[in-house]
């Protein structure tokens, strides 16, 4: 499975990945409509961590041994058989936040704006290259086949 590789040494902390993630997961996928419109913006599923000049963008690692799938009480968190991505079925999710408790990377968030569900990276389902990878100006996030 292709994984998103984070390269801290090239992340400049511009946070365009966060912005493009929001756009990609919006209804219109139009940056001006998303940020200037009245609709509620989706949460970015990628977050840039920064301390001084050290920064990197972090999103779900889609762990092989995913604790969130184990912990999910309704079976909402599942692994997509085709892509190997860990996804959340928002229909089944009841917002118990157990996944958030067990996630070792802290990359699952509470989406409390709309329906109370867990919000996490879905590798931009349907897209060949996730939005964060495509839009990182310095190639600090790349998609690679790596064991």
């Amino acid at each position, binding site marked *: 499975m292709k994984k998103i590789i984070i390269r801290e040494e*090239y992340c400049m902390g*511009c*946070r365009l990945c966060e*912005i493009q993630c929001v756009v990609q997961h919006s209804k219109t996928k139009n940056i*001006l409509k998303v940020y200037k419109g009245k609709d509620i913006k989706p949460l970015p599923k990628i977050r840039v961590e920064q301390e001084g*000049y050290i920064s990197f963008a972090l999103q779900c690692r889609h762990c092989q041994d995913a604790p969130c799938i184990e912990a999910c009480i309704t079976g909402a968190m599942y692994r997509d058989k085709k892509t190997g991505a860990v996804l959340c079925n928002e229909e089944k999710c009841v917002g118990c936040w157990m996944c958030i408790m067990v996630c070792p990377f802290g990359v699952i968030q509470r989406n409390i704006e709309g329906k109370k569900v867990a919000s996490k990276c879905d590798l931009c389902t349907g897209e060949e290259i996730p939005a964060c990878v495509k839009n990182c*100006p*310095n*190639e600090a996030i790349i998609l690679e086949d790596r064991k």
Partner: protein
Amino acid sequence: MVKKSTPKEFIIERDNEKCITCQACVRMCSNDAHVYQPETDTVISYDEKCVGCHFCETICPTGAITIRRNPSEFKPNANWDATAIRNIIKQAETGGVLLTGMGCDKPYPIYWDHILLNASQVTNPSIDPLREPMELRTYIGRKPDKINLKTKLTPQLKLETPILFSAMSYGSISLNACISLASAAEEIGTFYNTGEGGLPKDLYKFGKNTIVQVASGRFGVHKEYLEAGAAIEIKIGQGAKPGIGGHLPGEKVTQEISETRMIPEGTDALSPAPHHDIYSIEDLKQLIYALKEATRYKKPVGVKIAAVHNVAPIASGVVRAGADYVAIDGIRGGTGAAPLVIRDNVGIPIELAIAVVDQRLREEGIRNQASIIAAGGIRCSADIIKAIALGADAVYIGTSALVALGCSLCQKCYTGKCNWGIATQDPYLTKRLNPEIGKRRLVNLLRAWSLEIKEMLGGMGINAIESLRGNREQLRGIGLTDTELKILGIKPAGMAW
């Protein structure tokens, strides 16, 4: 009086219809020109802090930012133009020498743009480089006076294309910029130059594509350094600042740079104006041969000089002193920091320098003894082919390479705040230059230029760059005076063979 402050050079136009207050510009500007206002959820910009590097414009996801030149607020005056007035205000304020970066930006004649190339028609066939082999390989080094089957050549540099990267030191540019240049040189089969900053440990692996420089400060020069490179270059002068030494401010001398340059951390790296052991051609000869001895005559030793009025006799002396190549840097050559008055007023254009040096060396019958590398303001493949037809063997490109890496010639290299991560040592900024991207872009540039050179060569009916060298019949001058044509050694446009 009311103290005048320097008028702003640029205006930052923010289209608030498009600005989504994502603050990418706020985070990215090293000059703090953009500031977020949480009370109103808006970003405001301070025009006076803008240096015109266009980084925010590039990074803005909605294209909300446009950087414009501040329309002249002074009364138009051909003598007292805005630059002159601004500079006086700055100096009245600071009492110091004005510093600047990059090459001379004055509107002196650019002779490249007054030279036209030839092409074949009917009487001699042109060549299609896509169908027939075209040779760009160039050898830099001394060629023998006579050859027979037993002739052994002195060491040569083998270039797959007649383009090298100019000397830019680690210190003046970031390590990531050095890695981009070195790895691109390796991929293309050409050379980059360490400048006088020494060779950082990480770059020894690119040794076979490295020209190591020995300059007046002798920073980072030791046995392994000399042995690491494919050639050694003695730097006498630089086109942007002929007759002037260098000064890397102590703030930029980080631990890595102090190790590489072999000077204490945080101390100013001062390169004297002259080499204190070179006051004559004979002294230069001693250094050339000392370096040749030190490396067992296995590497070519070249000398880099700035193009000054007396460049032809100087070059002749340099060749007679035993240099395997002479690099000549014209007035438009770049720099990381130089006094503005020197950069803009000292030296001569490289086009004239190539022509007079090539002519002089031919007249003296010593042109074969050294190669000529031309530098300073080479902007495109046409400039390169014109330089070679005027008599150069190859060219050095510095500014063009940096532009490929993102540089927008804001001329603020000396501040160490380069937003593009090139002319800076601030770890927050150097991260912005990913050497993988840098290498890719430099390789693309050299590939593109090489293809264009082949096209132009083919058009002239020439299938090897060797056959164009010094072939001034392929050039014609346009809009030049008789004296300029004579110096360039070319005929005016319209005149047949």
